[in-house]
């Protein structure tokens, strides 16, 4: 039985209001002891959860838990079942994800959960930063959830995930949204400054991709902008995306673009949005794929 919805008027305007929850709502649910709701922290910083987290929250580390240990891919159905089961999450459990860096990795985890068809995945609007900024409770107590029986589900790599071959076939047929900083987009910079080894051999962007940095979608406090503002950015008057468009988002490794994928898919309700998780670390190193440089899309 899913947890109740957050009735915030801001969320009611989104295409899928059930995909976001507010910090106030979450605090209420925790206080009320709502059952079959599991809060999951997913951070870029592997140690942040240990310094303090939302009471009752379990940790899912994107790098050690969600990725295959050898191949550049995600864990398989059996691995996902074991992971979620160990965190006390059943197939019908409401999952509320939150994390650092404006929910980049929380959105990434939400996207991976979606590949496995987990139905009730929500993001805490504003993420960890907002929870902390509001002075809400943190604890270092690590919960020991009762293991749940999670079914083995085959990952769907078609509906919401794009591979390099899909992007090549997509060129000239549908819009691409590049989520990186303008300097990465033009090719002036090969990597973001603190992550030198994620550098690539070629700079620039996928031809025809339009550059809308991820931060465009959020307000000062890290919460998603209201629907009307998102419409102005991504739909008419902005990127011009239409409901019948087949859209692909990408960034460097797929985490920032998951944040935008979430906005396009759930908040604006575009039905066909795929995230290209290979992103620029794959494209900029691939042999003989087309690349555009400079501020223009093509």
């Amino acid at each position: 039985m899913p947890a109740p919805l957050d009735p915030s008027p801001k969320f009611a305007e989104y295409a899928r209001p059930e995909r976001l929850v507010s910090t106030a709502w979450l605090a209420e649910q925790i206080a009320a002891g709502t059952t079959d709701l599991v809060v999951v922290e997913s951070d870029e910083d592997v140690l942040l959860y240990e310094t303090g987290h939302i009471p009752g929250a379990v940790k899912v580390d994107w790098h050690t838990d969600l990725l295959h240990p050898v191949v550049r891919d995600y864990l398989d159905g059996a691995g996902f079942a074991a992971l979620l089961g160990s965190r006390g999450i059943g197939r019908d459990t409401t999952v509320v994800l939150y994390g650092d860096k404006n929910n980049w990795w929380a959105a990434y985890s939400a996207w991976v959960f979606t590949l496995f068809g987990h139905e009730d995945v929500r993001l805490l609007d504003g993420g960890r930063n907002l929870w902390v900024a509001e002075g809400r409770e943190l604890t270092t107590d690590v919960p020991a959830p009762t293991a749940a029986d999670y079914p083995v589900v085959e990952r769907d790599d078609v509906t919401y995930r794009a591979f390099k071959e899909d992007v090549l076939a997509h060129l000239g047929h549908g819009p691409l949204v590049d989520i990186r900083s303008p300097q990465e987009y033009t090719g002036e910079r090969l990597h973001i400054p603190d992550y030198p080894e994620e550098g690539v051999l070629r700079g620039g962007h996928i031809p025809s991709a339009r550059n809308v940095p991820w931060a465009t979608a959020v307000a000062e406090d890290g919460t998603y902008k209201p629907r009307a503002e998102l419409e102005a950015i991504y739909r008419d008057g902005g990127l011009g995306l239409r409901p019948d468009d087949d859209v692909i988002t990408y960034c460097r490794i797929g985490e920032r673009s998951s944040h935008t994928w979430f906005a396009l898919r759930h908040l604006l309700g575009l039905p066909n949005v795929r995230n290209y998780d290979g992103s620029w670390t794959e494209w900029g190193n691939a042999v003989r794929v087309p690349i555009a440089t400079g501020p223009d899309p093509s």
Partner: protein
Amino acid sequence: MSVDEVGGVLGEIRDEFLAVGERERLQLLLELSRELPELPERYAASPALLERVEECQSPVRAFAEVEADGVHFYATAPQEAPTTRGFASILAQGLTGLTPEQVLAVPDDYPMMLGLARAVSPLRLGGMAGMLGRAKRQVREQLAEGA
């Protein structure tokens, strides 16, 4: 300098990491993150030392100074970046007090010797390598200025 030849505090820290299992290594890094010293007063009020990195949102700054009693390594990183603070703390404890020549002799891949490659992700270790590289460059520049 080979892996086995890293001595002093850096060698001790490496040995502590390698002596325990992977989960405990993260706990050790967390403990080290709590030991990162505050910046000295003369730097604490220098906003120019804080470098804003637009994409990662963490104002991280690390720098080395050659002083009469040897090298000092200073770093600042926000509380919400404990991994970065842990790596900075290792360097603050391991580099401070060394001679400039000893700092320059620290292997560039020291971060890879801590047995954290699977627990922390290579990109974070690259960040620590970046801090070490920056410290070495600054030591080199100060030696050149003083020459």
